């Protein structure tokens, strides 16, 4: 962006200072995440750069922590659990959340605001309170320390994201399209699957991604509701940090950063597709 010619020298100076400040803030946002990447190749079991690493001596680097992650059974168990729990939780929250969003976006929906506030609340209530409540209640109905219990808990935490994203897609939704389909003789089911679903799909997918990452990252509820058979990657990381800090955690963290980059790419592609279809949207 070229500077407007009427800018005074002071304004020009400020313009660049401002850019530097913003750059610094963006570095603050991203740098901590990338600091762990080189650290995870540390040959020594510490969380800091060794002199060998700084002089780029190959002896200072090692992939042993990655080997440990891929070979140790308890980590692999955690990986399986994380995926199983997140996938099932995502399915449940996407299904229920999408249905609810379809209902909420109908103009005839009674008590819309109240329902919305209630359905979003799992995102707002402090996790420790949800986790403690689930811990006592799920123990009582016999689903604590089971995969089912953790999946249901995570599904509950994930639904607000689906409701929000699908509702957002539906606000731009042109209802005359479904009416047109109906008037042209399509059955309600046909209309739904051939007209509505393709239009709200981007919202559903990004909601599902949010639900997935919510479950995949969640640790407080797993700590309370789950037991060792349900331990997930974040659980292992949490107890690892509290007990013996080993660079294996950094290796795992690096891999998780790759996962989030992947998810971010999917979202970005979705957004571009959406932009092509609807023109630059507001969200």
């Amino acid at each position, binding site marked *: 962006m070229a500077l407007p010619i009427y800018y005074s020298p002071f304004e020009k100076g400020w313009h660049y200072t401002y850019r530097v400040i913003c750059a610094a803030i963006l570095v603050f946002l991203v740098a901590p995440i990338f600091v762990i990447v080189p650290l995870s190749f540390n040959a020594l079991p510490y969380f800091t750069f060794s002199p060998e690493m700084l002089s780029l001596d190959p002896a200072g680097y090692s992939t042993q922590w990655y080997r440990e992650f891929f070979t140790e059974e308890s980590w692999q168990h955690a990986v399986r659990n994380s995926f199983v729990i997140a996938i099932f939780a995502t399915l449940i929250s996407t299904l*229920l959340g999408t249905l609810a969003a379809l209902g909420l976006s109908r103009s005839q929906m009674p008590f819309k605001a109240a329902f919305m506030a209630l359905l979003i609340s799992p995102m707002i209530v402090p*996790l420790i309170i949800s986790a403690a409540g689930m811990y006592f209640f799920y123990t009582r109905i016999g689903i604590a320390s089971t995969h089912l219990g953790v999946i249901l808990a995570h599904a509950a935490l994930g639904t607000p994201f689906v409701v929000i994203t699908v509702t957002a897609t539906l606000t731009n939704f042109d209802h005359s399209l479904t009416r047109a389909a109906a008037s042209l003789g399509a059955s309600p089911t046909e209309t739904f699957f051939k007209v509505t679903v393709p239009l709200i799909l981007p919202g559903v997918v990004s909601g599902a991604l949010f639900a997935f990452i919510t479950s995949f990252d969640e*640790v407080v509820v797993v700590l309370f509701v789950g037991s060792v058979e349900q331990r997930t990657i974040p659980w292992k990381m949490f107890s690892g940090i509290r007990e013996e800090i080993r660079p294996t955690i950094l290796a795992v963290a690096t891999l998780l950063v790759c996962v989030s980059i992947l998810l971010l790419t999917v979202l970005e592609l979705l957004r571009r597709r959406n932009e092509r279809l609807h023109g630059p949207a507001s969200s």
Partner: protein
Amino acid sequence: MTPGSVEVIRTADGMPLGLSLQRTLLRSRLRALLLVIPLLAFLTVTFVLPILDMLYRSVDNRIVASVLPHTTVAIQAWDSKSTELPDEPVFEALVMDIQAAYEQKTLGRVGRRLNYEKPGMSSLFRKTGRQAKRITEAPFKEQLLGVDKRWHDTSVWQLIHRESGALTGSYFLASSDLRLDDQGEIALQPEPRRIYVSLFYRTLWMSLLITVLCLILGYPVSYLLASLPARTSNLLMILVLLPFWTSLLVRTTSWIALLQTQGVLNDLLVFVGLISDDARLQMMYNKIGTIVAMTHILLPFMILPLYSVMKTIPTSYMQAARSLGASPLTAFVRVYMPNTVPGIGAGCILVFILAIGYYITPALVGGRTGTFVSNFIAVHISETLNWGLAAALGVILLALVLVLYLIYDKIVGVSNMKLG
């Protein structure tokens, strides 16, 4: 108007139109509701009931009456203000109850419950339980008094009298650093035991500080993102979204690696020569650690709502102000900033709500002075086992959050919440 003079419009099948429309409306309302009901039912079972169930624990006092059923009834006849001990029937009831509870191994529960109110009750009940089986006939009073001299103390009986109901307020008193004294009056906890008021205060001011820091750091970046052309701003936006999508534990781990005494930042400072090797800075396990890490973690939640508001402000506003002679600063402060207030409000409330309920990051980097109410709730659930107190703290925290949530709903509208 005479009946029949109004022509009733009817639909093809002969139904009055008004009624037919009403029915259609009702049916479509019902259909909308039917779509929401599955999720509503699901959340009720998996989320709402568990929370209500836990909140009930903050006043639940059934344990005393269920373990000491006869005593809690008999003691009602005793004047709890009197300086005299209760009469023989109360003692008899207590001996019966203690014997039964000792057999069923439930006596420890009531001992522990009353020990929260008065230290020493736990061992009093344990000791009495072991010796009470020898007391088989009257006079019960004399014999029980012989078991332990603490039974002479009327405040013990006042405590049983006070806590014999099914509900109690004592957990809420305790979570406000208050207690009932021996006369049954509300009094301050002794100074060394006061903790929760200052804990809430600390949670609030640290959350506020984190919110302000997020605003200070988030505002310029959002402004930059909103003023750059879409292509560039979308690229930079990725830098904001990446931390947003990165696991909380990954980001906390990063901060541990950075802030440790033997960590990256300290190494850097020593290397540059700003500090000496034996005077490394303590940046973790204290307030600094919590504030820095949480500001980083919550910053995207400030930037995203700010950005979405700023993007809707037409650039012509600023241009108009400038062309009318306003200095850049005046134009920015008087024209641009007021337009961003909704974004500021949304971002600040969201960050603040998320901050006051935080658990993981303070638990890992907060140490002694950087922990929040949430951490104490966890401690009372899994370490001290005082679940009633944990629930009472939870109720207060939840109430705070819900009030803020309602304000957020009023200002922004929950349905306008945007993600990413």
